[in-house]
């Protein structure tokens, strides 16, 4: 009798699943083949003939591997390796970029040139990749939905922070309002935020996120900044400037960094808030076609 586990493992080598899930699938299929083999062995003269008959259960191992992966995953087109590497990479990149912005904003005199300004950030990329590789190994417990939403959140955050970094470094027209309170708006940044909001909402829609989640994802940089400002900046302003200036300065900061950017992000997201999510129908066409691509369920 052949070693069914070894045989299944070899033939399903292309099956892209987390190691524990793959091991379980191999054990289960091997057990199934073993029982079929025992059954057909009773009617076959030789063991080789029984093995051959048993293996007729599977026409095409590649198709089986693809169908199992599709059945086990949540309908994504990317394979496990890509997913497990991409999302932690994106998450860590975002974190790295955000922290770099905070640190580098303090080093204007050291890096007056725009290209030089980015060098330290680029230098952190190997570290970012190393951290991503480590996180990828631990990616299994994160479910696919969270992993998918990471992309949209990451794109929104990276877009918002990187565009601010760039726009802070170059000359561009500003819009200054003097009443009711004097505020200067960074117009090119706001224009870019419209695109960033659109990208975030679009990716969240592709991840089959409901409308509310798409809205939160697209406006998340402004929302979070608003919350942080409310919790940290307002008390600090009170401590330093006292009433009523604290409210005035807070209103300027909040308007400039949270409310107006939030509106720009929302504007970009609007087209993707109207449409329903991509996969919300009960039996989407792709899924139905995918079913046909598999071996027939009932023969």
């Amino acid at each position, binding site marked *: 009798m052949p070693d069914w586990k070894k045989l299944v493992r070899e033939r399903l080598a292309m099956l892209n699943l987390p190691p524990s899930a793959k091991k*379980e*699938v191999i*054990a*289960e*299929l091997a*057990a*199934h*083949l073993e*029982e*079929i083999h025992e059954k057909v062995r009773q009617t076959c003269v030789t063991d080789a003939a029984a093995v051959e008959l048993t293996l007729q*259960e*599977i*026409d*095409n191992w590649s*198709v*089986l591997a693809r*169908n*199992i992966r*599709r*059945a*086990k995953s*949540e309908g994504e087109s990317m394979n496990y390796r890509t997913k497990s590497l991409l999302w932690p990479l994106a998450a860590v990149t975002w974190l790295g970029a955000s922290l770099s912005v905070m640190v580098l904003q303090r080093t204007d005199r050291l890096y007056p040139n725009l290209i030089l300004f980015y060098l330290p950030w680029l230098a952190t990329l190997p570290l970012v990749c190393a951290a991503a590789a480590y996180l990828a190994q631990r990616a299994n417990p994160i479910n696919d939905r969270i992993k998918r939403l990471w992309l949209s959140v990451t794109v929104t955050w990276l877009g918002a922070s990187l565009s601010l970094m760039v726009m802070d470094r170059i000359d561009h027209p500003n819009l200054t309002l003097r009443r009711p309170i004097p505020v200067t708006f960074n117009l090119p940044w706001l224009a870019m935020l419209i695109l960033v909001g659109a990208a975030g909402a679009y990716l969240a829609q592709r991840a089959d996120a409901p409308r509310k989640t798409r809205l939160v994802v697209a406006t998340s940089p402004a929302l979070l900044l608003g919350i942080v400002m409310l919790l940290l900046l307002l008390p600090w302003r009170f401590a330093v400037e006292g009433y009523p200036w604290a409210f005035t300065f807070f209103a300027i900061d909040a308007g400039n960094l949270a409310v107006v950017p939030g509106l720009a992000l929302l504007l970009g997201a609007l087209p993707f808030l109207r449409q329903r999510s991509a996969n919300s129908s009960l*039996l989407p*066409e792709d899924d*139905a*076609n995918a*079913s*046909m691509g*598999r*071996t*027939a*369920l*009932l*023969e």
Partner: protein
Amino acid sequence: MTKRIRSQITRGSAELAILALLADQSLYGFEIARQIGERTNGALTFTLASLYPLLYEMEKRGSVEGRWQPNHAGRDRRYYRLTPAGRKQLAPLRQEWRAFFNALDALAGVSHA
């Protein structure tokens, strides 16, 4: 018949067969395939390649859940049982199929053919 309709019928009938079978008892893959074949006198048969992707998909959707336990011969097998969600799904699914066959019968007289 378009590909889409045909695939939905095939998929739906296979799911109904598994849900109905697991409503009575927990079974592992080989037993599910064997019992479906036996109970339908071989009219419906599952191969390994057709059974497991469907079982995994149903498990992902929460209709069934699998658990390793020894079978009557003491070998570890992954037994599937119906979840409360799967049990809820079964009655309307049966009703849908009954309506479908009635409609087909009215149209083509399939039950008396």
